[in-house]
């Protein structure tokens, strides 16, 4: 196994560990905004995993998925923030 393949495996391992840690914050998060930012950092990690996977398989078109996921994550976070703000007005 060359240094390049080893670095791909290390990168995927670190990203998986980060995902598990942010899942812990998603479960124990004391308030709703904690859970929202944990979901947001999870989508960043999914973008990273897509990038590593496209390098691993040599398939360029997987990077389109990263673009779409970043768009959807922004819209989802803004929608959650609007919901949080409106929730207090009642």
């Amino acid at each position, binding site marked *: 196994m060359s240094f390049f393949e080893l*670095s791909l495996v290390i990168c995927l391992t670190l990203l998986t560990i980060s995902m598990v840690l942010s899942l812990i914050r998603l479960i124990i998060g004391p308030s709703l905004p904690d859970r929202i*930012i944990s979901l947001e950092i999870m989508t960043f990690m999914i973008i990273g995993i897509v990038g590593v996977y496209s*390098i691993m398989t040599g398939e360029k078109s997987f990077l389109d998925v990263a673009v779409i996921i970043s768009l959807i994550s922004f819209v989802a*976070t*803004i929608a*959650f*923030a609007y919901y949080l*703000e409106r929730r207090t*007005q009642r």
Partner: protein
Amino acid sequence: MNEIAVSIFLIMGSVFMLLGTIGILRMPDLFMRMSTTTKAATLGTALILSAAAIYFSNIAVTSKVIATIIFVLLTAPISAHMIGRAAYINRIPLWKNSVIDELSGHYDFTTHKLESCEDEHPEEDLL
């Protein structure tokens, strides 16, 4: 040579991602946690995507990667600002050892307007 650069970028990016997540788990306060997600995770994403751009060395891939990085750099502070404002309006508590809360008394919690001074009618002072 090219593969060594890709490996270094990948490992640096995933280490920054891991640091951001350790921050989100260890920080005592929502607002401190938000700072780690917007800085470390954005930098990690940008590094991993630029590793893909170096690996493929293709103009289509490079332009796609640059568009994604610029989009992430623009939208991460905006979404963090929106969530922080909504959390402050929801009265999420600060850390108990926090020194200063510069927004206290400046937010109207019913209309969600930000006031710069506590004076009700500042235009009367000018007359």
